[in-house]
């Protein structure tokens, strides 16, 4: 079996309408993969910058995978949430991005979007917040049914990841 180490951080998010944000993240992978060490999911703290355009989380990611094959390479499922001044949490957007395959240092921007409703619902979102949510976000990232969805683009989540791989060359894999 081969091993993959992912060491890095979720740096922050930018480009969202409001700035008091936190991020729920999860790593999803195929059946050939197993997490040996590290948290597979987590949630950052709420960052509320006063004058900067970017919310900084600097949330550490330290994962150790073991795998039997190349299919189902792990990917991040991100959900960016907004916490307003009254303490209400609303979902801002979803984002999906593959963990880079080639070993080394990668700076990634994972773009995010949120489902878009009818005109009335959009108006409601403008005033009182809270958009419609996906019934099952786990299926969405790899499903063939995404064409049914209408979305609105939101901001970007910045990631910095170091990838270390082990024993892949023994099985003839070239990155």
């Amino acid at each position: 079996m081969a091993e993959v180490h992912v060491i890095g951080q979720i740096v922050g998010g930018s480009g969202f309408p409001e700035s008091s944000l936190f991020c729920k993240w999860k790593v999803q992978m195929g059946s050939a993969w197993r997490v040996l060490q590290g948290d597979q999911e987590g949630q950052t703290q709420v960052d509320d910058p006063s004058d900067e355009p970017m919310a900084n989380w600097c949330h550490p990611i330290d994962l150790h995978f073991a795998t039997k094959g190349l299919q189902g390479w792990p990917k991040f499922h991100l959900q960016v949430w907004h916490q307003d001044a009254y303490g209400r949490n609303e979902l801002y957007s979803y984002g999906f991005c593959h963990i880079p395959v080639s070993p080394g240092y990668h700076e990634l921007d994972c773009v995010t979007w949120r489902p878009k409703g009818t005109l009335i619902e959009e108006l409601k979102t403008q005033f009182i917040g809270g958009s419609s949510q996906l019934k099952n976000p786990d299926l969405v990232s790899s499903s063939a049914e995404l064409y049914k969805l209408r979305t609105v683009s939101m901001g970007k989540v910045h990631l910095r990841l170091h990838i270390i791989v082990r024993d892949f060359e023994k099985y003839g894999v070239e990155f």
Partner: protein
Amino acid sequence: MSSLDDNDVNYAVYRSKDQIQNFKIRVKLERLTSNALIPSLARLKIQEDLSRLLDSDGQKAKQPKATTTDVLQALNAQNTTDYEEVVISWQQKLFSRFEFEAYGRDMGSSSTPLEKIYFDQIQKMKAKRQQPGRIFTYIEDDPYCMERDLDYFMTDSPNEQPSNLALGLNSIRKRRTIPSRSNNQNLPKADLIKENLTTDDLLINHYGSLPHQTMYIMVDLNDPVNTSAAQLVTFARPPNEHVLCRIHVYSNEIIIITPDFNSDKVAYMIETGHLSNEVYQYYLEHASTSISKTDLVKERKLFNEICLRQHEHLAQLIGSKFDVPPPTVLKLNIIGEIVSARNFEYDHIYIYYVLDLAEDWYVEPSTLLSGYTHTGSTTMSSKHDDVVYYSHPFEFELWYKPSTYEADRSFPRMPKIYFQVASLDSWGRHRTEGYTYIDIPNIPGFYDEHLSCWRPRGDSIFNEVRRFFIGGSLELEDISYIAIPTLFRSEPSNSLLSRFGFRTISTGSLNIRFNVVFQSQSFAMEHKKTRRVHAANRYGFDAFMSNVHSVLEEFERAKRRAIEVRQNVTQTIKSSF
């Protein structure tokens, strides 16, 4: 380590996992004789070096390294000669003459516990008729240590004030045990914010210094006074104390000794500042009893076992299987995502993508080679209002198995991915927004591509007007026309692809990020070969030997296979009976 003839004060950092109570240091102090004239240190240094180099003790008047017989003599006459040797263990209190008198006076009930302890110790010493020697120590709790000035004042300015940081860090030192912050278990899982801080919390969390303890080994260089006379005459003499050695022990197993041990180097010199300038020299030796051989062996074995067990545990979790493609087949994995689309004419666009397999490329029948993204509209923030974010991941797994004829003669043609961007607005108008494609590169790695798109325009303006008002635009019948049309490829008589007369308009661009990974058994074999043979040894005898090795290995493998085949055959024969 500094050079052997360097007498500058230096310091050394040691690490030891052992308990600090086992630490012992030996100090040997001696006065240099024949100093009617103020001796020049340089001359002494040269004499020292010569004596060391010549390695004969007969010439000089002084002996920097005492032999065992000399030590015995010295011990017998310790009070009259100026040689002193002491073995000091960690935080062992040795009294100076001044302290001997100071603590020897009974303070009565107003003395602190420390003073009481010292008083008891001094009484015991008096009972055994022991006198304090020149060498003494200041340990952690001593109130009189003047060297502590170094903790607070670094320069010689009389107006120097220690900063808050200095005060904070120094007050950490005075405490013995502060739990180190690196322990994750001390962090509470809830209530991360502490409302009411105590000074203890401040010390733990705000100052990053490690708690440490210090000990000073000092020497008292005043002239020795006859003790009986000293009891009659009690006048305060300015203490002439010098630091011989300063030892810091930190809580992370580090021991810092200033200056370093010099048991095999030149002696350190101290000069008293008096008119009769006397020079003393001293040696510091490490005198802790070292671990016995059997204990050391046992300890090493224990560590090895622990490491091995951890390795085994992890290896068991990992396992040893891996999917490998069959021998002559190359597997290609494309792992990526459609990130965004930018600069298209209309909003609410989606992307249709399809992977076009070239010749000799195969895929599992159940794989989906095409897909649609969701319909996205542009961002709400004003900065980039022509970008649509998709973050749509895709993953393909392909196998390349050329026919034997092709394998020797032609280069593999890589598959392509075609993209069609279309828009569907709320009125139900559907328009094509652009076409583009990408060749899968044949070098594995990470790619971040920006692909520019075009759309067909047609000859008359009617198409454009219709596209604007009611939607419906010209579309490609055959999506492979974006790259090289299949019709063209299938007829070998066509040698020239001409798109003359096909009008297009440039539209926006797509951002695609993907990784290309190759896998094949021949790579694995190459890797095994290169691992054993270094590049420099590819020629000559080593290459010959490695070739022999590989031949022998192949022979072994073939023999094993033959044995297996024979076993299978005999089994089938037996079962058929």
